[in-house]
């Protein structure tokens, strides 16, 4: 579990989490719920509930930033996505890169009518803001907003009860919606591999809105523990674990984040290294591992092919929907083909593992209106 610094900052829903019986831990400098107590609490129960129904996550620790609409071109100098060509109300997953092509953070960029809306990781948001400002952009930090994620196959049922028009949103699209006299910015997106929504709203409205969602029979509060196991099963990397400044987008299997135009034009940090690896391959890749038995392999565990260490686990644990341990690891390219038999060292024990495609659990996104794909 995360270390507890002496003073943790509190988020707008702190009081609600405590009333709901959350166990609070330090995460990214904030007091956050890792899991809830009671009959329906616990990481496995919360995880499975989200896969079957709808889970409400407080992700207000993440950085919500606004840039002027004309910051699209300067933003493109920091990341490999096509931002100038991004349509209004469309989300794009992207990566802040350093000059060696290393990943400084992963983020979502959305073009709105009058600005660009960025969501960045809580643990590195101060560095991201400094990075944007150093590049000459005017950054408005919206720490007066909360951010909720409602995830799961029944998320749409629960949210449309409060805001009927959300059913019109498709995956990776966003729009403004009115609720209780305020404007909410809602996207159909998330980090669990399920259909769902991310809801940005004034901090002053957060508790009222969260309680209205929780009143729905589909919805239970879900902590950071299940958020981590859900994203791991979905094959989604977590910054600071599966991505960092020593990994680049090709190694990380995130080549899709390099937009077509940027592949042709380059002009993003580390472009020569990344485009070379895009065409000629990287020395190592982020892959998924299915592990025999029940013993989980955690971050830092060494991966072996026979007697040779060929990689390192960057995330791993029990996967509640798979019913077995799974892991993500960076492994030398000769050993990354699906089905390759490898071993993982856990406290001197060699666990049999094999390379499997990610996601470990098929994704359940709503690509076209009303159709799960």
């Amino acid at each position, binding site marked *: *579990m995360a270390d507890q610094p002496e003073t943790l900052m509190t988020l707008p829903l702190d009081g609600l989490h405590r009333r709901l019986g959350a166990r609070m831990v330090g995460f990214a400098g904030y007091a956050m719920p*890792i*899991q809830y107590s009671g009959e329906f609490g*616990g*990481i*496995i*129960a919360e995880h499975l509930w989200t896969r079957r129904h709808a889970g409400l996550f407080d992700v207000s620790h993440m950085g919500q930033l606004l840039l002027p609409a004309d910051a699209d071109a300067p933003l493109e100098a920091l990341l490999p996505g096509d931002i100038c060509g991004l349509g209004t109300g469309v989300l794009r997953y992207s990566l802040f890169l350093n000059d060696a092509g290393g990943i400084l953070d992963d983020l979502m960029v959305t073009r709105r009518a009058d600005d660009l809306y960025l969501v960045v990781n809580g643990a590195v948001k101060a560095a991201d803001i400094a990075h944007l400002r150093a590049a000459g952009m005017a950054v408005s930090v919206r720490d007066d907003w909360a951010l909720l994620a409602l995830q799961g196959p029944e998320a749409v049922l629960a949210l449309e009860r409060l805001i009927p028009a959300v059913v019109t949103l498709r995956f990776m699209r966003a729009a403004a919606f009115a609720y209780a006299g305020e404007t909410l910015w809602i996207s159909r997106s998330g980090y669990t591999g399920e259909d769902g929504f991310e809801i940005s709203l004034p901090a002053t409205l957060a508790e009222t809105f969260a309680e209205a969602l929780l009143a729905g029979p589909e919805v239970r509060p879900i902590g950071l*523990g299940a958020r*981590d*196991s859900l994203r791991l099963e979905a094959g989604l990397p977590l910054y600071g674990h599966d991505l960092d400044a020593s990994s680049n987008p090709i190694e990380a299997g995130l080549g899709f984040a390099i937009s077509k135009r940027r592949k042709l034009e380059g002009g993003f940090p580390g472009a020569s290294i990344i485009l070379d690896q895009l065409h000629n391959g990287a020395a190592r890749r982020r892959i998924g591992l299915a592990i025999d038995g*029940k*013993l*989980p392999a*955690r971050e830092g565990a060494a991966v072996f092919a026979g007697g040779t260490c060929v990689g390192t686990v960057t995330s791993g*644990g*029990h996967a*509640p929907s798979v019913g077995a*341990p799974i892991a993500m690891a960076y492994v030398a390219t000769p050993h990354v083909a699906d089905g390759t038999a490898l071993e993982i060292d856990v*406290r001197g024990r060699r666990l049999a593992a094999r390379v499997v495609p990610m996601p470990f659990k098929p994704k359940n996104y709503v690509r076209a209106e009303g159709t799960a794909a």
Partner: protein
Amino acid sequence: MTRYYTHDHEWLDVDGNSATVGITDYAQGQLGDVVFVEVPAAGTHVAKGKEAAVVESVKAASDVYSPVTGIVSEANAALEGDPALVNTAPETAGWFFKLALSDPSELDGLLDATAYRAFVATL
């Protein structure tokens, strides 16, 4: 049979020279869902206050310390198939291992149920 506890949230049932070791209900609540337990094999020497077992919850691996010094006589084989016994029956069927005590005087420093409850109330 006498039940003892430690400040590290292990329990110990002592019957003559043999003892059964497990973790307390408070400990399992803190760990959350247990998915794997690594227990010492029969014949293993364990030392008071030293790592003797590992509990893997969904979130993390945690060491379990032996409350006393001794030689393991039996590991709880049921935990292999059903590690969640640690959550559902931590102080009964979810025991970890049995051992033969090397130094019964080590029991003097352990807590009784009243003292352990008082200790947990301060946490």
